């Protein structure tokens, strides 16, 4: 869905007026994300799972792990696939049916943030080179939409992956066979954290809620890894950023990303 319901003009004006004074409608500082809660292991039957609440946005993510055929030119690497769906119960304008461009962008951005960081060492997920590898699927279901699904889904996927348990398969006659009762922790190299920022006029705000999303001129999602390096970027929205604004965003992504990374690590369980 490209736009949430129409924002009333009085609120729109108030949001702008407050930003001039360095304030936001819900009382946050410009660089302050909403309260974040992360619970892992909420879907015990899945191999990993998490529920994230970022303000009033809520996402439930499940990780399923199963043997698969490797991609044609990547026989020495396991598979990682990330999907996202905005459930129709999440928002009055969310429609059931094949994903539109917003949802596709959401899934691909969350996927890239995790993939490009190298979070999961895919070379450790090979059962038989070129024939059989382990596939890790992270599926995000947005259950309540109040803006910034990029970060909510990214945190939920990351937390679900960190806390997942990989079953053990042995190759018997070229067929991967499950070995009951033996599970291992995933091969993690780094923890990616995305921070989404919006530009409203000349002001940069972190973690826009749905109302702020409806007023914004442009947005950017920046993902950093545990070393503080930037591993993924996505600019969106109908307008642009100046170079100064862009550099400011990157600084915010690194500093706030570090704080959120601590929270995700604690939720590992």
């Amino acid at each position, binding site marked *: 869905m490209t736009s949430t319901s129409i924002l009333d003009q009085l609120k729109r004006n108030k949001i702008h007026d407050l930003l001039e004074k360095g304030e936001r409608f819900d009382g946050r500082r410009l660089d302050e994300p909403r309260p974040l809660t992360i619970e892992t292991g909420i879907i015990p039957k899945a191999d990993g799972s998490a529920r994230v609440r970022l303000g009033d946005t809520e996402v439930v993510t*499940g990780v*399923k792990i199963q043997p698969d055929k490797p991609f044609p030119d990547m026989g020495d690497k396991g598979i990682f696939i990330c999907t996202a769906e905005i459930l129709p*119960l999440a928002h009055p304008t969310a429609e059931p049916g094949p994903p539109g461009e917003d949802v596709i962008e959401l899934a691909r951005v969350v996927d890239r943030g995790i993939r490009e960081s190298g979070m999961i060492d895919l070379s450790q997920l090979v059962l038989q080179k070129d024939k059989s590898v382990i596939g890790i699927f992270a599926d995000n279901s947005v*259950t309540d939409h109040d803006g910034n699904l990029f970060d909510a889904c990214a945190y939920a996927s990351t937390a679900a992956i960190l806390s997942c348990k990989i079953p053990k398969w042995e190759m018997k006659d070229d067929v991967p066979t499950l070995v009951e009762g033996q599970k291992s922790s995933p091969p993690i190299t780094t923890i990616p954290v995305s921070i989404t920022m919006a530009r409203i006029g000349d002001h940069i705000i972190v973690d826009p809620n749905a109302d702020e999303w409806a007023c914004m001129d442009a947005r950017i999602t920046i993902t950093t890894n545990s070393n503080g390096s930037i591993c993924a970027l996505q600019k969106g929205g109908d307008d642009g950023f100046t170079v100064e604004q862009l550099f400011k965003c990157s600084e915010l992504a690194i500093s706030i990303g570090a704080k959120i990374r601590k929270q995700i690590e604690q939720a590992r369980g």
Partner: protein
Amino acid sequence: MGGRESDLVLLDENGIRCDGRRVDETRKISIKAGVLKNANGSAYIEFGDNKILAGVFGPRDVHPKHMADTDTGILRCRYHMSPFSVGERKNPAPSRREIEIGKVIKEALRPAVMLEKFPRTAVDVFVEVLQADGGTRCAALDAASVALADAGIPMRDMVSACAAGKVADTIILDVNNEEDQAGQADMPMGYMPNLKKITLLQLDGVLTPDEFKKCVETGIEGCKLVYEIQKQALKDKFFANGGE
């Protein structure tokens, strides 16, 4: 379906089932009303290991417009399973099974909701299975009813659902996943407890006429048990702070 070979003892000599329950016992059930911020009404249910979320929007404008009815509101229902909800990851695209279940749930709710008061509108019910463990359509229907009441959609009655079935030639209440796979019959049922009407009924398996009667009676008892839990969920949300 139907008596597959397995090591599982579905009913032992003491009348205890594979998960420790007696023949007339349901799994543990809990329901919470009003769990979502955006939906007009919502409910979350845990029915055994089933974890299901229901959200309701409406009455609201119908799109596409040609689907609207000038004389009455319409009811739409979508049942969907998250990819991570089942043993082997499920493709996110709706399957034929999910579409059929959506229809069956809609038809179970339709007699209860009073949509004649809202011509040209739709009430949309969305059910998402986050974790599945046998009997999801009944659990989904239970959550959907609570979500409709939470939204304030006028209803003549609640709809309560529970399955009955047969394992080891014995009629049982609330069929779990193993019993569904290896048992002899699974009969999901939806029931309006005050108007005493059955609005959802399906059967997988074989029952003699006597077994069928017993199964229906057992199912109704199960539905009545679930009804009390649905009532409590609404009480907890709306009446808990009451001064009465």
